[in-house]
């Protein structure tokens, strides 16, 4: 494909300062079973080319799924006309340096290829999962899903870039819903579709699969008779599968430079972070170390180059609680003068790249799970996200989890249902009083991070140890 794209690049005729062609081919398979019956089986193929044209400091784009010389030529001319029409109203003159020359490739680690199991065999396993989840007649619904995606991207440009990246991604999910009269409780494996990785079926048939399935079903039943989470202000311990969401919403999004610049204000909102905050804002306690790290093997949003060709590297966004740099592409860095990362990403060939999280991780501390719990007289431990909401400045949030335990005198005690908590971002992170060690660190991800106009749903990865926050308002369910 690189040679085909290079050929198109040489032949198309537009008087632009720079032209880039980014082709994407993505094959995704969905298989899901509910209550032992197949619900969804199938696969999708999408492929197309995004043509970007830089002229008079303005980029125009045109995306087409007709991958022929005629299709690309027509797209290039459209992109050129769009750029010219907008150039007098340009918000910032984009330099060619925002699209640097780069040559390289990346391939996801893969141990067990997707075709190592046939569609029938995958369905058999999903059916078995749903049957094993039904540990009691009070389980009224069980479901299991496996998603695989193979994505190839090729990028060439008139200043000599040639990048090929090949991603294998897998996401799995299973859950059980228990009901007793008006009480309904759902328990899943780490929250809806949180088990998302780069790799193959080794992330589907894991060594602990059947034990975990049994645990999910049993905990759904356990929640039916559990006490409701109390309404109080207490010490809150969050498991890594909830930290996934906490990091994403209250650190990742507010640090995006395009939000701070206002591009996103009409849709998802702006940020309480200002440009002058970079380098000096105390975002959280000294225990808070957040990295942008697309180099972690197997994490869902790893890559070597972003969708504009910027080489990716591990960078501290927040170090010892102090804000260091933004989630901002080369383009946003040129607009702001703030240090950023290689994060210009597009959801597919039919959307332009924008500032995006990749893997955003909380770095581990030095206490084991047992040591952390032993150090808490009274508190609540929560696992697995079930609800999320945060304001348009990424300030006031409210999150809910599936499963919680009381912590009393250094021990996990009663199970609690309907656990919720709410807080304000800087206060919350300032209350970070303990961070688990590497043994507590787990990575998760989601394919559904929404942003942008036109809208784009993209993959992100988040790794975290368990984390402890002081003086948090928690509450239960019910109207």
């Amino acid at each position, binding site marked *: 494909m690189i040679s085909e794209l290079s050929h198109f690049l040489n032949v198309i005729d537009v008087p632009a300062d720079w032209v880039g062609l980014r082709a994407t081919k993505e094959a995704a398979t969905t298989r899901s079973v509910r209550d032992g*019956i*197949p*619900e969804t089986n*199938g*696969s*999708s*193929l*999408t492929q*197309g080319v995004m043509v970007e044209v830089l002229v008079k400091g*303005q980029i*125009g*784009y*045109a995306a087409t*799924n*007709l991958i022929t010389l005629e*299709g690309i030529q027509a*797209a290039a001319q*459209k*992109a050129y006309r*769009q*750029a010219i*029409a*907008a150039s007098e*109203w*340009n*918000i910032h003159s984009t330099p060619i340096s925002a699209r640097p020359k780069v040559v390289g490739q990346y391939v996801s680690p893969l141990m067990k290829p997707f075709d190592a199991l046939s*569609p*029938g065999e995958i*369905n058999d396993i999903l059916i078995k999962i749903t049957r094993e989840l039904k540990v009691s007649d009070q389980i*009224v*619904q069980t479901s299991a899903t496996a998603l695989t995606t193979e994505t190839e991207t090729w990028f060439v440009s008139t200043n000599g870039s040639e990048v090929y990246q090949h991603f294998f991604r897998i996401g799995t999910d299973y859950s059980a*819903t228990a009901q007793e009269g*008006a*009480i*309904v409780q759902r328990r899943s494996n780490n929250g809806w579709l949180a088990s998302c990785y780069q790799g193959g079926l080794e992330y589907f048939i894991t060594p602990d699969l059947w034990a975990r399935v049994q645990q999910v079903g049993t905990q759904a039943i356990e929640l039916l008779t559990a006490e409701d989470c109390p309404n109080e202000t207490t010490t809150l311990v969050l498991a890594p599968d909830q930290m996934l969401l906490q990091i994403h919403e209250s650190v990742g999004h507010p640090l995006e430079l395009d939000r701070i*610049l*206002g*591009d996103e*204000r*009409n*849709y998802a*909102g*702006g940020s309480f972070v200002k440009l002058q905050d970079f380098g000096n804002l105390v975002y959280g306690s000294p225990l808070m170390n957040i990295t942008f790290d697309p180099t972690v093997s197997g994490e869902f949003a790893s890559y070597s180059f972003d969708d504009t060709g910027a080489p990716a590297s591990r960078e501290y966004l927040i170090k010892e609680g102090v804000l260091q740099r933004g989630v901002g592409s080369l383009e946003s860095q040129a607009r702001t003068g703030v240090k950023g990362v290689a994060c210009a990403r597009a959801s597919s060939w*039919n959307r332009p790249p924008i500032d995006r999280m990749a893997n955003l991780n909380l770095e581990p501390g030095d206490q084991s799970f047992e040591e952390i719990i032993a150090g808490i007289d009274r508190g609540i431990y929560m696992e697995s996200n079930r609800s999320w*909401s*945060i*304001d*348009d*400045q990424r300030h*006031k949030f409210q999150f*809910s989890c599936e499963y919680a335990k009381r912590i009393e005198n250094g021990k996990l005690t009663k199970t609690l249902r309907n656990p919720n908590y*709410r807080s*304000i971002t800087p206060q919350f992170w300032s209350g970070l009083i303990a961070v688990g060690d590497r043994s507590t660190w787990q990575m998760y991800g989601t394919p559904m991070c929404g942003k942008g*106009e*036109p*809208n784009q*749903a993209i993959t992100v990865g988040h790794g975290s140890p368990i984390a402890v926050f002081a003086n948090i308002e928690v509450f239960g*369910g*019910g*109207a």
Partner: protein
Amino acid sequence: MLENSFNQLVEEIRNQLKPDEQFTLTLDSEQSQFTRFNHAKVRQTGSVNDGNLQLVLMHNQRSSYREFPFTGDFENDRRTAIQAIASLREEVAQLPENPYLVLPAGNNTSREVHTGQLLNPEAVVSALLPVVTDLDFTGIYAAGSVIRAYADSVGQKHWFATDSYSLDYSLFTPDGQAVKGTLAGSDWDSEAYQARIEESRSQLSRMAQPPKSIQRGQYRTYLAPAALAELASMLSWGGISESSHQQGGSCFSAMRRGEKKLSPKFTLKENFKSGLVPRFNELGEIAPLELSLIESGELINMLTSSRTAKEYGLEANGASEGEGLRSPEILPGDLDHDRILQALDTGLYLSNLHYLNWSDRPTGRITGMTRYACFWVENGEIVAPIENLRFDDSLYQFWGENLIALTNFQEFVPEVGTYGHRNLGGVHVPGMLVENFTYTL
């Protein structure tokens, strides 16, 4: 031309089929322009030519699908379709039986083509931006043609094509307060655009005062139509779905059990009379022009797809597979526009809401944030804009005993979503006045 290409492809697939096989074929296609603005300047501008076919093959009580590009180049698309059929045959034979598989049936056909007068793509920037140069204008203009089509092995066929545009924008004050506006249709009207901007400019002037901080608690609240539309949208997320109810997930199960009712003032229905979205679903079934869901506070119907109907022994009502609202309407009440502030008296006026989610779906509890032009009102007079507030309340309260009044007018709030492709339609809703709306942070 695309229609011819689609029809040719349908014939090709029919010819390829074996006698005991069935298929459905659905098409999403668009030629769209997207221009994104920030600070009354262009942030990004471009176009997307996209098309996507989904072919479902059914055989021996088993099924699978293939999605593949629809380019409009028949030979190209034909090759892909033939490969898809071969691949589906191989896969379907391996799959477990699905006793609830619904085969296409019936003889529905339809064809709707709505042509419009849209701005030339290269004229968009010069048409929109000179009007707002003195404003902090941000948002997106999306326009072009959208196609939804369907065909199957029993001969049903539907074609729905429409030219449309939407402008979804916000205006900001220097300290970050904002008002929102949307404009949508099939014919661009520059006078209507200028009038809408003037209206927004006037609203923005109200935002100049410093925002007032409101303590958590319960307040009498007016929710404008855009805010009510956000609440209504939650019902598509496992709310009004029969399947969700059967599997323990619906907020309306308490009404089904006869434990709860909503206010007699509240009526919700699906109403396809506006013709903005296709009435056919993934099986070619045609939804009724109107379907009553909640009538005067009583649950009449949940959205029931054919699969759900087959599984639970019920009757389908034209719902799509996801059992979400496609053309919803909340009926108006009797509150005059001019009496809204007087009726509110003292409390909060909310123009919009943001980032809603179920905080407890079985009890109908929803959380979210206030957003855009939201005001503190005293004695029927707007006093000041407010700082963002979080609410967390149950629909059994705000559409139940706490519902004071609905306005006697409705607004059409267009669907401007573009995940995957440009969405169609929108929701017809009034504004509503409620007692004791609960704010938590």
